[in-house]
């Protein structure tokens, strides 16, 4: 058996994550679950996960190190510490047992990037078509959208900081694009 732990490589390939001037960072690994279910399932998710999934469109709810991001009217991205995924899947599966739902571990499908600094919104606007003014895109807002040619999940975690989720195969592209945009600011 190959030792898969040994084979773990960074998602950015040859890119040096410290090459930016400080606005960009790669976030540490996380547990990521895509939960889909009807409104009647939300109470059970809240009890098992410890965070009540937001019912308001495009909003994230946070409790401690866990977060539930609204992605669609029956779809949420659940974030937790890296080691927690197997445990969470079991807990949620038990709690939701009699109901119809879908729960998929996508921890390794995507990677988290952080864009922060006074001009974070301006930097993202180089490739994101949304209005990122804080009136239009307040703290706690999250949504799937586009960054130039790649789909991302964009989440404003502070006035001047955004959490991005990007598919790991597109991470070098997103990183390279943001780095270029940062140089052009």
């Amino acid at each position, binding site marked *: 058996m190959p030792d898969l732990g040994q084979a773990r490589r960074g998602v950015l390939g040859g890119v040096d994550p410290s090459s930016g001037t400080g606005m960009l960072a790669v976030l540490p690994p996380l547990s990521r679950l895509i939960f889909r279910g009807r409104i009647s399932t939300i109470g059970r998710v809240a009890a098992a996960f410890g965070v009540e999934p937001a019912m308001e*469109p495009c909003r994230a709810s946070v409790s401690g190190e866990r977060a539930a991001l609204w992605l*669609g*009217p029956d779809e949420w991205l659940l974030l937790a510490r890296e080691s927690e995924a197997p445990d969470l899947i079991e807990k949620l599966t038990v709690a939701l047992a009699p109901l119809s739902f879908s729960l998929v571990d996508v921890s390794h499908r995507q990677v988290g990037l952080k864009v922060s600094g006074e001009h974070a919104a301006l930097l993202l606007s180089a490739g994101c078509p*949304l209005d990122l003014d804080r009136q239009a895109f307040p703290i706690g807002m999250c*949504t*799937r*959208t*586009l960054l130039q040619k790649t789909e991302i999940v964009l989440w404003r975690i502070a006035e001047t900081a955004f959490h991005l989720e990007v598919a790991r195969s597109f991470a070098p592209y997103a990183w390279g694009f943001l780095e270029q945009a940062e140089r052009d600011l």
Partner: protein
Amino acid sequence: MLLIDCPFCGKRPELEFRYGGEAHIARPDDPSEFGDKAWGQFLYGRSNQRGMHAERWRHVHGCGRFFNALRDTTNDRFAATYKIGEERPALPEAQGAVEA
């Protein structure tokens, strides 16, 4: 940039959406009883409307949902968007009418 009013997410840039063809075309309950001509009409017959057109859109790079929209094909203006399953909204005459 053209903004489209997703019934779930609100006004969002056109880039996030995909067109999904004419709306309100129901699949026959029993295709085997339907006859070739009628089946062909179901598959390929479309109103090809000049003016206000009911059509499906999908917010593919957003909430992922399909919804319906009324769009004027002569000027690309969206008059209304509504959820799948809802009735086609009635429009005021002035908005809905387009000179032939």
